[in-house]
């Protein structure tokens, strides 16, 4: 194709003489680009956060609270009895008493150090108090070392401050403190300044209770049962048995002992949904904003192009009379849109980067990956070309006779 047919020079000079409409569209494209790209980046980040694995067999796990109220309520007896009954129920894989539920929003955290003392570098981690059935119940696998033996589990009394001498930690925590799971094995960590705990095992993955926490993958297991009057059991069922088992467990626990109430049976799926509710809402909001902005921009382009085709009927007829083919006319409008979008995209790139810098600074959003910009630009160019196609086709179908007939 002959380049002179493209009329880029005259088109550009004509645009510069008719800035208002074109500038509005270019600015609209720029603003749309900045907001759409930044929103989309946030949506993708949030979605990736939501996809993170807690480590548990979430679909088949639930938890339930037991609260003793009777004066003669013996927590230690009650927990021992509950756990043995739970573990015998057909349909249940395993069950444990636990002090906090992963990704639920509430739990315990402690700081660990490699040397004793209060002036040393520490690493924060979530603490789960569990017994020797933890690995199977929480669906954890050992990366190194071993699990707890029944003899290693102690009883923690209410407001007892000290810690057991053994621990199992997650691989992420091991890497953060000792660079690898194998290096961590056998090491001593100091909890709460000076109490030593020896790492006897490293497990693949177990998330902390707080989904917004930067150390979400840092968790440690402490080998102990709790002699607390109010406590929670985490139950893992066989696949597909969860809902049935929830009812059976509730009934079994309610009838097995008196002097306590059983409540708050909750699935881990519900817990996940609740914890990520804000993220979900944010994603919905941003996707709505993105679609609305794209639609408005496309509508603006269709509007301006239709108006200008309408206004230029006689000029289009004249160009046809002077030798323009239908393709020449079609291409003219596509190219005009491309130039306007191009200016919008140059402006938009600046706006996108500017907005991202502001978001990073003020809202701690992760900086944008560079490829979002060319990808966003491409989407906007394509959207513009699609938007202008119908008006451009109308223009191409204007008869050359309009040169002499138009009013």
């Amino acid at each position, binding site marked *: 194709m002959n380049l*002179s047919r493209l009329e880029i020079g005259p088109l550009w*000079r004509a645009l510069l003489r008719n800035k208002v409409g074109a500038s509005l569209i270019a600015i609209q494209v720029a603003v749309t680009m900045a907001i759409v790209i930044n929103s989309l980046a946030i949506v993708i980040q949030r979605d990736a956060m939501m996809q993170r694995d807690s480590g548990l067999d979430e679909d088949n796990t639930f938890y339930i609270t037991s609260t003793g109220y009777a004066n003669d309520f013996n927590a230690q007896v009650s927990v021992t009895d509950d756990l043995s009954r739970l573990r015998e129920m057909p349909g249940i894989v395993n069950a444990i008493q636990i002090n906090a539920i992963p990704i639920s929003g509430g739990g315990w955290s402690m700081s660990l150090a490699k040397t004793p003392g209060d002036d040393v570098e520490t690493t924060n981690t979530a603490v789960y108090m569990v017994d020797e059935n933890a690995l199977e119940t929480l669906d954890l696998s050992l990366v190194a070392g071993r699990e707890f033996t029944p003899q290693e589990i102690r009883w923690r009394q209410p407001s007892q401050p000290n810690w057991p001498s053994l621990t199992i930690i997650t691989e992420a925590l091991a890497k953060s403190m000792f660079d690898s799971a194998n290096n961590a094995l056998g090491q001593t960590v100091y909890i709460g300044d000076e109490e030593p705990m020896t790492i006897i095992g490293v497990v693949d993955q177990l998330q902390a209770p707080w989904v917004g926490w930067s150390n979400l993958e840092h968790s440690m297991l402490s080998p102990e049962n709790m002699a607390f009057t109010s406590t929670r059991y985490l139950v893992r069922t066989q696949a597909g048995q969860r809902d049935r088992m929830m009812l059976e467990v509730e009934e079994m626990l309610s009838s097995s002992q008196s002097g306590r109430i059983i409540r708050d049976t909750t699935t881990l799926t519900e817990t996940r949904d609740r914890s990520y509710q804000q993220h979900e809402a944010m994603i919905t909001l941003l996707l709505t904003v993105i679609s609305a902005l794209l639609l408005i921009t496309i509508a603006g382009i269709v509007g301006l192009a239709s108006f200008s085709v309408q206004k230029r009927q*006689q*000029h289009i007829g004249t160009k*046809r*009379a*002077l030798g323009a083919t*239908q393709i020449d006319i079609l291409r003219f409008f596509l190219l005009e849109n491309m130039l306007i979008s191009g200016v919008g995209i140059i402006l938009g790139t600046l706006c996108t980067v500017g907005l991202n810098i502001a978001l990073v600074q003020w809202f701690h959003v992760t900086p944008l990956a560079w490829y979002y910009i060319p990808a966003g630009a491409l989407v906007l160019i394509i959207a513009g070309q699609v938007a202008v196609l119908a008006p451009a086709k109308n223009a191409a179908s204007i008869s*050359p006779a309009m*040169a002499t007939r138009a009013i």
Partner: protein
Amino acid sequence: MLSMQDLSKTFTTDSVQTHALRDFTLHVNEGEFVAVTGPSGSGKTTFLNIAGLLESFNSGQYILDGHDVSHLTDSQRSKVRNEKIGFIFQNFNLIPDLNLYDNVDVPLRYRGFNGAERKRRIEEGLAQVGLSGRMKHLPSQLSGGQQQRVAIARALAGDPRFILADEPTGNLDSEMAQSVMQLLQAINQQGTTIVMVTHDPALAAQAGRNIFVQDGRVHEEASLC
């Protein structure tokens, strides 16, 4: 050479049929300057549009420059218009967003000439109509007569065999009309065939040959006295 034999053109709108041309027969020889007159609505513009391949016809035969043009595709017609025909319109039809240089450039770009060739032709064309110094001006900065001169430069830039002009002086005062007429005569003398529709008998009289159209027919062919 432009030859129409028994051409008919009917416009059908909302079940109303208008016979714009009926058995229209006209032969224009190479190098002629033909003035077409006739009452309003008699079919002059329709004839010129068909002659310039801007419009199709219903029946009859039209031979342009030795070729039967009735079965050309739309893009072939564009090419013939671009290469062989220069149009001059009553309203000048300059593109208001383009300066004079770019206006004259329009048909040359569709012709596929390179930049240097186009520049040469544009400068030559604007010089020929006395507007060399105004190349960067917009049409709106010129008088009607000057705009029509630009339109003439645009029509001539591609060296067409035919100039088709529909009331080229219709929007000009008599002095400007006369100067445009002189320009057309000069062009005709250099060998370009011109067919001009006009309602001004004084101007028509200056053409080499007059035809009179009425009710879509060539009613009377008056030769120059």
